[in-house]
Structures are given as C-alpha cells and as structure tokens.
C-alpha cells in the first residue's frame, strides 16, 4: 500500500498496463517526454520507450482515428484527450467508428483494446471549455463503455480493467481530484470489474447516487442529513454504460427514496436514464419522486461556478424535501 493521489494512481495503472503487456501504446497531446499537461503519463516514455509513449499532433479526431487503427490491428491503444471539452472533434471517430467497429464487421474486426482517457468536470476555475462533463453523449452510444472513478484506489483498478476490457472504453477522470484526492492504494496489479456499482455506505431512509467527483458532494450532504437523524445509503455508480441497475434498484426498494447527483446539465443528463429505469423497476416502492440534483442547463460558468455546481447544500435540501414529501 502507498498513500498517493489520483494522478499517481493513474500513472501507476498505465505503467503496470504497459509493463504487463508489451503491445500497449500510450499517446496523445504532450503525453510523451513532458508527461501530459497534468503529468498523468510522467516517466512512461523514459521507462517504456519513445515508440510506446509519444506525442501526437494537436488533432483530437486524428488521435482517436489513429487509436482505432492501432486497436484494430490488435495492439492496445490508450489515447489521451487533454480535456473532455475537446473530445468533440473526435466524436465521429468515437460514435461512428469505435463504437460500431465490431458490430458493422460482424466481428471480422474490432477495437476492443481501445481506451480513451480524458479529464472532465469543474472545480478548477476552467470556465466553459475546461470544465464540462460530456458523459451522456457517450452513454447514448451502443458499443461504448463509460467509466468514472471517485478516488485513487478506484481509479487504478477501474483503469486497469478498462484497458484490458475487450470493448472500447471512455474513462473520464475527475481532474478536480487529481491532486486533491489521496488515499491508500495497493501497489500490486488489480482490477475492479466494469458494470458494477458500489454501496459506499449503507443506510435506510434514502438512496443517494453519484459518480466521480460528485461523490464528495453526496457524502457531505449525507453527513449533514445524518445529524438530522436521516440515514442515507450512498451509491457510487462507477460504470455508466452498461450500468448496474440491479444494485441501484435493490437499494431504492429498500429505502423508498432516491436522489441522483451529477455535474452535467440536468436535461438529458445520465440521471434522466437512471430515474426512468428505476421508476420502472421500483414504482410501488417509492415514497417520493425521484429527484435529480444536477448542473444547470447553461454552459459551464466561470465567475459563478459555485452557484452552478450541484453541491452538498443543494443535495442536503433535496434530501429533506424528499423525506418531507
């Protein structure tokens, strides 16, 4: 065990992936000698060689197109998109190519060995273009897996599982937690299974669900609610596609109340899918409406970021409203 931050955990996972499989390549803008703008790929070029960890030109569509080619050849491609806000030039290569590669060819070819890593989310004074949470664009695409870790230990295990999963995975990294989140992380090679959520804390009155950096907000809100005598069950979804509906519905059947928290705008956010599916599963168990505490339906702001965020206070208020419904 070592006490490390989330960036170090990701760096460690990449190092293990490249060591355990020589056919693994790691590339993107500035990821070579410099180690990436956040230093997630620090020392990987020195350790594994210039041909396995390298800079690419500044072209997101090129990076993902290239990655699709690498993966379709059979090598393992780990592509970095410097900020999730800049993933959109690669949208076609992700949605029309990576996601459909296996299906359209009848599995003559596939890009299952592709993983796209990209930092997402607010909390770093990044304004419109360094703060977005675009996960829902991708959860709407059959063929992709979408994963978001909440802390260093989870990040390492989920990233290793994503890299080794035989499907293209988009791995969203909560950049706000890159250095802020530290914790004990096992030194050895381990994987946390995709498609499985986790009950982080058991409770009986209400279920709270989030992923990534927003786990902090619901945990803090739960602490406040506990002081009012409200017992909260806390769920980390971890994989958004395909998501762990059984785990969530079992929790909601037990508590009868449910709040979903995500940083992305509310309308058509992934919370909408969860809410719809859970009311289908749990209709007769619900004591109050399912509520989404989410980002506003505005572009991500700068000066008013605190106001925008679906923070612990907004979540706490939603918990009380749900209990008093």
């Amino acid at each position, binding site marked *: 065990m070592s006490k490390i931050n989330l960036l170090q955990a990701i760096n460690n996972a990449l190092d293990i992936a490249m060591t355990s499989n020589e056919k693994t390549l790691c590339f993107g803008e500035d990821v070579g000698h410099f180690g990436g703008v956040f230093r997630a790929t620090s020392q990987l070029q020195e350790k594994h060689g210039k041909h396995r960890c390298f800079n690419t030109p500044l072209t997101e569509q090129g990076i993902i197109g*290239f990655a699709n080619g690498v993966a379709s050849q059979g090598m393992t491609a780990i592509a970095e998109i410097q900020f999730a806000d800049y993933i959109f030039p690669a949208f076609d290569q992700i949605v029309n190519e990576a996601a459909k590669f296996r299906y359209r060819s009848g599995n003559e070819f596939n890009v299952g060995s592709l993983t796209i890593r990209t930092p997402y989310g607010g909390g770093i004074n990044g304004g419109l273009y360094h703060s977005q949470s675009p996960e829902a664009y991708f959860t709407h695409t059959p063929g992709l897996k979408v994963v978001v870790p909440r802390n260093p230990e989870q990040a390492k295990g989920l990233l290793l599982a994503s890299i080794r999963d035989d499907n293209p995975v988009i791995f969203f990294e909560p950049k706000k937690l890159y250095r802020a989140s530290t914790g004990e992380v096992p030194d050895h090679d381990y994987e946390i299974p995709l498609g499985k959520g986790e009950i982080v804390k058991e409770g009986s009155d209400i279920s709270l669900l989030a992923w990534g950096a927003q786990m902090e907000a619901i945990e803090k809100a739960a602490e406040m609610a506990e002081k009012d005598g409200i017992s909260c069950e806390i769920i980390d979804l971890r994989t958004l596609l395909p998501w762990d509906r059984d785990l969530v519905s079992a929790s909601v059947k037990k508590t009868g109340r449910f709040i979903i928290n995500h940083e992305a705008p509310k309308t058509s956010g992934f919370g909408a899918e969860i809410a719809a599916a859970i009311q289908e599963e749990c209709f007769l168990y619900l004591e109050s409406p399912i509520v989404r505490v989410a980002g506003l339906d505005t572009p991500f702001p700068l000066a008013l970021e605190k106001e925008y965020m679906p923070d612990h206070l907004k979540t706490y208020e939603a918990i009380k409203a749900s209990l008093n419904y």
Partner: protein
Amino acid sequence: MSDKRKTDAQIVHCPEFSENSSLNIPTLRILQDDGTLYPNAAMPDIDQTLALKIYDTFLFIRALDERMLASQRQGRISFYMTETGEEAADIGSTAALKDDDMIMAQYREQGALAFRGFEPDEFMNQIFSNEKDYGKGRQMPIHYGSNKLHYMTVSSPLATQLPQATGYAYALKAQDKPNCVICYFGDGAASEGDFHAALNMAGVLKTPSIFFCRNNGYAISTPAHEQFAGDGIAPRGVALGLKTIRVDGNDVLAVLKATQEARKLAVEHHQPVLIEAMTYRLGAHSSSDDPSGYRNKSEEDTWRSKCPVSRFKHWLIHQGWWDEEQELARKETHRTSVVQAMKKGEKVPAPALKELFTDVYDSLPWHLEEQHKALEQHIRKYPDAYKTTSWRFDDE
C-alpha cells in the same frame, strides 16, 4: 535543441507569394491509349501471370458491376455502387502489394477485394444481407470486409479510414512487421478533417502508409473545381512531409509502378506516401443518383475512350498474352459465375434475430439480453408482422 525548424530559408526583401504553379507536380504515364509503351518509360515489375490476374479481375469487376446495377434496377437489391472507369486505380495498386498488407477502402474498391480472392458467393452474401454475410446483414450493400484477406470492413462515413490507416500502420511498424497499409479515398473525402489529421500524423510519426486518392472528378454531383481550389490533392502530401506522386489512374502500368515504389518507401523506410490517381467515374455515384443532372454525355464519352480496361487489353495483345477468343470466353465465365452466385445468395435467409444484438459488445450485457427477450416475446405474438425472423424461432 528541441526547436528544429529551418531558419536558413532563402531570405527575400520584397514580398513573394507562393502559388499553385510554384509546385509543379507531373503525372506518371507508361502506357499509351493504343496499348503501346512510351519510349524510355520505367516499367513496373510485372510478368504474364500478374498481368493476366489483373486483367481477369478487370473483367470480373465489369461483369459484377454490370449485373448488380441491373439487379438494383430490377428491385432485387436495394443499393449498388459501380467502379466502372476506375478499375486500373484500385486493382493496379493492390496488385503492387503483398497479400497480407492491409487494405482500408472507401467503398468503390471492390476490385481490390476481388484481386485478393473474394469469391462471387462472398460478394453476394454481403450484397443480399443474408446470414452468410460476414457483416451479418448489418450494412448496406458494398460494405465488404474480410479479415482473412486483410480488407478492413468498409464504413459509410467518409475519410474515417484515413487516420485509422495511420494508426494501423504505426502498429505494424511498432512490431517490426514488414507490411504496409494502403488507404483508398476520393477527391471529395480529401476535404474532410480526417484527411489532414491522417496525413499529418503519418508524416510526423513516419508510418508505413500509402494514401491512395482516386481523383475521379466528382463527389456525387460536386465537380472537383467546386471541391478545392488548389492543384488537386497531391500538393497537400508534399506539404505534410509525404512522398507524393501523381499518376494517370487509367494506366494500370503507371499505377502499378507508382505503388510498387511507394510500397518500398513505406515498408523499407517507414516513409508514408500519397498517390493521386487521375481518373473518372464513368458511372453514377451510386444507384441512387443520375449523372445526367450534373454533367453532359460528351464529357463521359471523352473518358470512355480512355477506358483503362481496353488500354491494358491492347498491351496484353501486343505482348501475345491475350486474344479476342479468350476475351469472349472469360467474359462469359464471369457473367455466369456472377448470375449463379446471385441466384444462390438471394435464397439464403436473413440473419436470425439474435444477430441484432450480438457484437455490440464482446458479450451481451444485461440490458441487451433483456431487450432481446422482450422483442422475441413480442414477435411471437405477432409473427406475421416480422416474417424475416419469426419463421425460424422454432428451429433454433
């Protein structure tokens, strides 16, 4: 020093603008229209066996295209695309490669696939979207693919295969494999962002890629002069650090020569290459459009007289390798094999219902299992409304 930009360029003291004429890219032509060679022309590496294999593929593709276009008109298939007029470009270039070099096609390169040995039955299974189609009936006709023949499955979005060709070639290089990737695309696709991304990355990362542009003059109805203002596609290759050559795309010997040289550069020197083949799409873009709405017949006739198939045929006859009798017999053989394969292919049933759900992921996740089960229950309730799949439930 990390800054390796050249700062020793010639300095001038009055403004001088560079333009198209500053870079004069010639066109390689070896074979004259009458089938004789230009004096001193540099011949490709070609013997009688290869020459006849190329020509036989020409004849097969003509038979296939003619028959399938007619079938589309008869309503037997939904869609088709011919490559008439461009056979020398894709077949001549593929003939320069090793069988295990990867082909990443756009969609009008069935000749390359036929050259590799794709059988008439295999063409028909794809065109008729039947259960023997490698793509399991999921894509429109002409979206072929074959792992064993190293022919990447075609996808409709344009130019997406270009950066993929760069990545695939990089992977070959990273594993010291003595192979390259050839990537076909049209003059229209070269306007996509993926074109620039792909060539730029190939130049920087030194990948064994051959980018092969079939400049056939049209993107559906849009003529080349409304597609770009520069001197074609070739100068872009030079600008991005690729070795670049322009060839007469209707001269199969020129195409073969250029691609043989390109392969050497790519495989032995990791030097990516751009080939611009000047040709003409004699047919419509697809069975869904009618060229009389955007070009005149005399233009088509001019190009018809430059037919790549007859030009090569004349050369074969000069060589004493071919005659009219063989020509007639071979054409008849291909016509028959296409018709027989078609009759066979259209009788093969559509894929089973489960193939709607397989291959989205490597295995079925819970939500697809659930949707499959629900759909099957529904179809069992209304079997007549879903006859493509309902008939076989009890056989499975």
